[in-house]
């Protein structure tokens, strides 16, 4: 099965670290300028260190990386944990940018070839195979159905 893009090297180039944060916050990307240099820092919730949450960590990394590659204007982006009552925050977020980042994460972590190969399988099974969250697989399916790519 074709595997997701390995973002470890890319994320190493960006400063990353783990910090204790509220359960509702998955990751925070902050950008600022000082000493004539632009800094980019991704901070993940400490719980994502747990091997059991490796799928969430990969998604959070890919999502935050999406803000960088899409050159989103802004200094701070907060990624909320999926499936929490944070949905009520959605109306406050720049939905377009967040959606774009989810797309980036889906493209990077769910190869189309894998979906083709496993199209008759449950999303949960594919998610386990790729070690990514199930909703990301569903999103990738949606993109495939909608845009044929």
């Amino acid at each position, binding site marked *: 099965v074709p595997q997701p893009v390995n973002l470890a090297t890319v994320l190493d180039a960006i400063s990353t670290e783990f910090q204790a944060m509220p359960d509702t916050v998955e990751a925070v990307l902050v950008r600022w300028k000082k000493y004539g240099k632009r800094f980019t820092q991704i901070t993940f919730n400490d719980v994502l260190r747990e091997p059991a949450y490796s799928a969430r960590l990969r998604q959070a990394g890919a999502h935050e990386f999406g803000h960088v590659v899409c050159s989103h204007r802004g200094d*701070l982006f907060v990624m909320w944990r999926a499936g929490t009552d944070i949905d009520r925050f959605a109306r406050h977020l720049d939905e377009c940018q967040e959606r774009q980042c989810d797309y980036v994460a889906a493209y990077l972590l769910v190869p189309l070839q894998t979906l083709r190969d496993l199209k008759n399988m449950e999303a949960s099974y594919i998610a386990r195979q790729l070690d990514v969250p199930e909703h990301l697989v569903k999103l990738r399916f949606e993109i495939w159905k909608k845009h044929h790519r």
Partner: protein
Amino acid sequence: VEGVALLLTNVYTLTTMLNGASAIGERIKEWRTAKGWSQGQLAFFSGVRSSHLSLIERGMRNPKVETLVKIADAFKRSYVELVDGIEGYPSSEGVESSTREDGGEVGAGVGEDRSTALRDAQINLRRIGELNPEDFDVVVRVINAVMEKTERKYLEEHRAKRNRRKTSQQAPADNREVSPS
């Protein structure tokens, strides 16, 4: 007689100042509670220390105009509105709001320096700021700590690189001096 007059004038001035301080404190508290913010949140949005805000709100400090401008900015309101009808504070003349012209919407560009970045962060957090105060404070503390750490690391690396460059520049010069002609 002159001494008593001076004393009375000073007492009057002091009373006016304290009344003004008390009134301004009450107004800030009123605005803050209307927003549902904790003092910590207002401190973050305005850049004024939480302990100082506490004293201001209780009328125990007479804040400077610059501080009031920062506080008014945090509420996205003007300094004039904040001091409106309160004695002892200068009018708006010469007082400029530092609120961004674009209204500081999310995605307003990478800040010029850390304080600007933080201001944007404040604005962004305010838009999504329905986190409970404890969580909010945690996120803010984490962001600040991480930014400081990253800057420190950069400075250390920068200094180390500079020292290495200096050493490598000195080395050939030293060699030239000791080498036989």
